[in-house]
């Protein structure tokens, strides 16, 4: 009986329950009736770090990369977006905006929620330090219907 008493806590400790976490974000940032135009977004990009999530990949604003586009690795799906490249772009953007903690996320209407979450994860930190842990959701970038 004593053996059973000690076995129970050992078994319970080995059980892994589903644990929930959360990302905090602010928004809606752009209460417009349509997705922000390229011109409007380019204007915004000068001062803030931003990520447009498109069906072709990411478009990063606020870093010094020659080409702000980060295409998917193959046909775009939640698993084929290049989150590692996005994190590298955020490291580059952090060098230009060392005190900034916010990043504007503007998903296009067809983008699945899973991709938005994984972008939050990729922009929040790299392996060594925090990058942009305060995402601002451009809720106006969704489709009106």
């Amino acid at each position, binding site marked *: 009986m004593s053996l059973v008493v000690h076995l129970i806590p050992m078994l319970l400790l080995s059980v892994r329950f589903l644990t*929930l976490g*959360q990302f905090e974000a602010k928004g809606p940032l752009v209460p417009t009736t349509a997705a922000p135009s390229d011109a409007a977004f380019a204007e915004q990009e000068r001062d803030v770090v931003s990520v447009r999530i498109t069906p072709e990949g990411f478009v990063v604003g606020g870093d010094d990369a020659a080409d702000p586009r980060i295409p998917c690795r193959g046909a775009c799906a939640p698993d084929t977006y290049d989150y590692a490249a996005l994190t590298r772009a955020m490291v580059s953007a952090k060098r230009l905006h060392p005190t900034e903690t916010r990043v504007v996320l503007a998903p296009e*209407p067809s983008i699945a*929620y899973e991709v938005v979450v994984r972008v939050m*994860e990729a922009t929040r930190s790299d392996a060594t330090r925090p990058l942009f842990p305060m995402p601002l*959701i451009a809720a106006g970038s*969704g489709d*009106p219907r």
Partner: protein
Amino acid sequence: MPTSAPYMITSMLDMFTIILVFLLNFLDPANETEASVALPEAAAETAVGGGVILTVTRESVLVDGQAVLPLVDGRIPAGTARTGRRIDVLHERLADAAPKRSVSAGTAEGEAANAALAVHCDRAVPFSVLGELLYTAGQAGFGQFRFVVISDAG
């Protein structure tokens, strides 16, 4: 002579106490969500806070567990009443929920304008739907969103 061994009540009490403490420790109501929601996975270490909960499944939108708006083929039905982009039925429900939570928590009235909304959203829901819901929530006074995920932070 007794024919069966007596119950070892002390050891059994030890076992049940261990199990009870374990369950109380791990069964946090904030860790519950709708069974029909497939939450995305991500490395998010922050603990899940309380507050008003917006649940988005592929079939419906719920506020604090009560169905507010059906979704048809994962989309907001075309005939849904709106004021501008705002979804009226959802706005009404969220506006009702926000001040009540703030007052009961003993916070200032102005804090309702920055109330936090916990979003339990199915991973496959497109942003065309979620964006509309977040916009409506913003109109109802929610300025902060907590996107709840299955934590794989280890």
